[in-house]
């Protein structure tokens, strides 16, 4: 295998700069004459804004300008748009209230931006902001979805009575009711999917700049998708043509979804830089991130699984209430609907499924996509109810899953909730994981732990995810207001080096390495002569960015498509040079060869001819070797897998230890196994974080964010996590040229249910059938105490 080709663990090309402190993150950039923005935020969850007195701040030392929502309104600045229209059951469109960049007459969550102070130094801006007098008329707030639906609850928006944004459904309700009516058993569960905060280690930052000479606005921003930001901000908020707006997302320190969305601060610094004619930098401090980054998850769900006498699943009924927060963030509305309800078949043949989702406004930060986005929520409820069913039926959880898996020979498989899976082999990944985890010998380990006074449990979860987002026509019919193709340009330079311009964006995923491997493999040239360019709308073709595990499946496919155009043109040029028929010229290992001969021209020779076209088929071709392609996927991709957690709980303290974690995944073809393993590790850490540590908490009375710093929000640390045992089983994606499926979100999708199932397995002897996440020592200790007390009383 050639060094650097597909399937080899190539060391990352981006590492040198990061390891030597030479990365360029947004906050590392300083522009000449730069000034600093500080954003004054609401300390209240729900208040009328009576008056904002900025006169003291405006005359404070170093202050360049102070702006409020009124100033932006006077300039005709629009609101932040939502990118996905969801219709309710009755066909009516979702309630879509305005999302002003700076609050105008009311604040609706703690952290809602109220004013911006721009000064020569950040310290001066912050000092001046303290002198701004805001007259807030504070009113009652509602932060959790159950309370928000109650009669008499504070109303977030008058245009959304009952706080309901939409009441959506999918599936065949009648078929589900019929199946439930004749089921041998119906297993029921109420559960919560805890609210999380993405917490990329790099806080969000933005620098706005205006060039008076060219009329161009530049925004440097911590984004996963610079073209999307340019489109949304230019078209809907600031009303600037794309040609006068450049968005640069340089090195970005993690995203996990939270940097997909168009945020207020991006519009503020871009607009204000035009007003004050100076570059303006804003960088969130971590406390600000907690109260202004979009949060994730936050579902309350009731689920029923109907099972027949042979333990086959015959129907699934799901009813979910999903928190939207106070405003609709960019992709918020599709997360608990089309990225959630459509996943509820999971890996199973359940023939009838019905899901309804009420999306609810509350006085909290907007909730949007976070690693997995909808798919972890779907997997959690499905794998919890399947485990509960196994317990009630007295069947081993692995065996119950085997009985209900979509068989490996049943693909393509049409689910009852809109998706058609192209490939998969769920039983093989499960068996691989069971073997690696020593599943069949678990009881001996449980007994050994019991002798040490520990409660040991094992839990498994299988998952399916829909990645490679997304076929534009399909998502368009489901309410998406954008296309979700990807672009690539392959620019072969005159002496044979290659620049790849991609609409995908790397913020940790290592595209500069994997994309180069892909190109090296396809064009037969060394990695060193390939440059991957991304993250700057002035350089790359219009593209949709990175999220939903889409980069290799959609962005990589676009690169392949563009390379194929280069090769097709190169064959014509080579045929001309070799005086052969084009049909006889084949491209292999970087050379165009006349079949059956040793006559050849290298890619570099062909490129030179293309740019110095003295001897060139001018009648047939234009000079140059530079091709752009747009790839719109035919379907989603469907990575899948099985995760197994083995845990021990100390009943005296409630402390949980993850003893082993095994993941067996099917990601289709793998380009760089080392990078893929890294993606799984990171996803597992976030999934385990959700399961045992993390939870965003608002005070129910005041709407204050109680988990507003790393003192209060438990991030997974090195000693909270185990080593991970990974394996892969490959079935190829059948509809993209690489056979790839994507791997970025898998860990976060499978892990929470595996951990929760292991915990319930450990506590089952006490009569426990469910414990909500996060499974903190306190929660586990209380659960153990309650059940022991109950058992003693009985």
């Amino acid at each position: 295998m050639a060094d650097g080709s597909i399937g080899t663990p190539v060391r990352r090309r981006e590492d040198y700069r990061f390891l030597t402190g030479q990365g360029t993150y947004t906050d590392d950039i300083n522009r000449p004459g730069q000034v600093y923005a500080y954003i004054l935020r609401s300390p209240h969850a729900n208040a009328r804004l009576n008056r904002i007195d900025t006169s003291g701040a405006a005359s404070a030392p170093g202050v360049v300008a102070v702006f409020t929502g009124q100033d932006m309104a006077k300039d005709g600045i629009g609101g932040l748009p939502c990118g996905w229209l969801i219709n309710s059951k009755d066909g009516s469109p979702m309630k879509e209230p305005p999302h002003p960049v700076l609050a105008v007459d009311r604040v609706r969550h703690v952290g809602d931006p109220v004013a911006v102070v721009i000064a020569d130094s950040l310290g001066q801006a912050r000092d001046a902001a303290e002198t701004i007098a805001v007259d807030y008329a504070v009113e009652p707030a509602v932060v959790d979805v159950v309370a928000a639906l109650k009669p008499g609850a504070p109303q977030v928006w008058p245009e959304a009575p009952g706080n309901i944004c939409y009441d959506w459904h999918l599936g065949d309700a009648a078929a589900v009711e019929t199946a439930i009516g004749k089921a041998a058993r119906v297993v029921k569960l109420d559960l919560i999917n805890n609210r999380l905060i993405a917490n990329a280690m790099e806080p969000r930052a933005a620098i706005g700049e205006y060039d008076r000479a060219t009329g161009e606005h530049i925004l440097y921003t911590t984004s996963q998708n610079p073209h999307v930001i340019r489109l949304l901000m230019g078209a809907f908020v600031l009303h600037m043509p794309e040609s006068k707006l450049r968005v640069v997302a340089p090195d970005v320190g993690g995203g996990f979804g939270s940097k997909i969305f168009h945020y207020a601060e991006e519009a503020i610094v871009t607009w204000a830089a035009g007003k004050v004619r100076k570059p303006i930098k804003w960088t969130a401090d971590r406390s600000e991130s907690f109260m202004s980054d979009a949060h994730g998850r936050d579902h309350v769900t009731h689920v029923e699984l109907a099972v027949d006498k042979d333990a086959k699943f015959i129907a699934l009924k799901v009813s979910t209430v999903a928190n939207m927060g106070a405003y609709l963030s960019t992709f918020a509305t599709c997360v608990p609907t089309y990225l959630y309800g459509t996943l509820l078949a999971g890996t199973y043949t359940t023939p009838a499924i019905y899901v309804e989702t009420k999306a609810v406004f509350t006085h909290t930060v907007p909730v949007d996509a976070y690693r997995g986005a909808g798919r972890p929520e779907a997997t959690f409820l499905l794998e919890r109810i399947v485990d509960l069913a196994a317990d009630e039926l007295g069947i081993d959880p692995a065996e119950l899953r085997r009985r209900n898996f979509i068989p490996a020979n049943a693909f393509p498989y049409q689910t009852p909730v809109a998706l058609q899976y192209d490939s998969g082999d769920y039983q093989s990944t499960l068996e691989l994981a069971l073997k690696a985890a020593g599943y069949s010998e678990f009881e001996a380990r449980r007994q050994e732990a019991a002798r040490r006074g520990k409660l040991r449990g094992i839990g498994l979860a299988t998952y399916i995810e829909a990645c490679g987002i997304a076929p534009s026509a399909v998502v368009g019919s489901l309410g998406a207001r954008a296309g979700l193709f990807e672009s690539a340009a392959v620019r072969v330079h005159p002496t044979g080096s290659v620049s790849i311009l991609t609409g995908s964006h790397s913020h940790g995923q290592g595209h500069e390495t994997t994309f180069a491997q892909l190109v090296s493999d396809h064009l037969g040239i060394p990695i060193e002569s390939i440059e991957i360019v991304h993250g700057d709308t002035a350089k790359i073709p219009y593209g949709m960015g990175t999220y939903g595990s889409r980069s290799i499946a959609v962005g990589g496919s676009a690169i392949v498509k563009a390379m194929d155009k280069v090769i097709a043109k190169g064959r014509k040029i080579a045929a001309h040079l070799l005086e052969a028929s084009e049909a006889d010229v084949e491209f292999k290992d970087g050379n165009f060869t006349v079949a059956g001969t040793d006559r050849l021209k290298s890619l570099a020779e062909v490129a030179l001819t293309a740019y110095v076209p003295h001897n060139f088929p001018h009648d047939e071709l234009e000079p140059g070797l530079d091709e752009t392609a747009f790839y719109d996927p035919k379907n989603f991709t469907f990575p899948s897998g099985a995760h197994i957690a083995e845990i021990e709980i100390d009943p005296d303290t409630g402390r949980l230890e993850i003893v082993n974690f095994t993941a067996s995944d099917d990601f289709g073809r793998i380009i760089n196994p080392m990078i893929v393993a890294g993606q799984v590790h990171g996803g597992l850490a976030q999934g385990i974080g959700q399961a045992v540590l993390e939870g965003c908490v608002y005070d129910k009375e005041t709407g204050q964010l109680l988990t507003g710093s790393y003192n209060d929000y438990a991030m997974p640390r090195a000693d909270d996590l185990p080593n991970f045992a990974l394996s892969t089983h490959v079935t190829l994606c059948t509809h993209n040229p690489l056979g790839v499926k994507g791997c970025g979100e898998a860990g976060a999708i499978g892990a929470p249910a595996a951990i929760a199932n292991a915990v319930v397995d450990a506590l089952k002897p006490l009569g426990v059938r469910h414990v909500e996440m996060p499974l903190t020592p306190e929660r586990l200790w209380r659960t153990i105490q309650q059940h022991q007390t109950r058992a003693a009383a009985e």
Partner: protein
Amino acid sequence: MQKTVSLTVNGKPASATVEGRTLLVQLLREQLGLTGTHVGCDTSQCGACVVHVNGEAVKACTLLAVQAEGANVLTIEGVANGDTLHPMQEAFRNNHALQCGFCTPGMVMSALDLVKNNPKPTDKEIREYLEGNLCRCTGYHNIVLAIAEGAAVMRGEAPPANPHGVAAE
């Protein structure tokens, strides 16, 4: 109130005029242009800003710039030997112990401090030591492998077999 601070950074003398409230990390990033030291939180918990002050690992957000008067500071920019990576940096690369790279400078500086005080740390000791460094990308698995490899090479031993199948350079 403004005050001039003089110190040694990465072996070279440096001085800057700072406010009383200026933090060491702000001095490094904003005045000396050493942006490899990062700020990931405001409660001294993430460890992205770890540097060495007089040979000890310090979170540069916990020290006022004026407290660093006369100090000898080492930042991530001063760890490699010219273009040659330090064995600990090389070990991070060999083990894919970084993804977005934002926590990485602090991780490397902490790892060097650990190995200075404990040349042969166990995996458990590495995990415990990293309590003050948050990473959101890697799940720490590969960071633990990298620090073990870096420590071995720093002890003068051959690196352990690469668990990812990466060929030796």
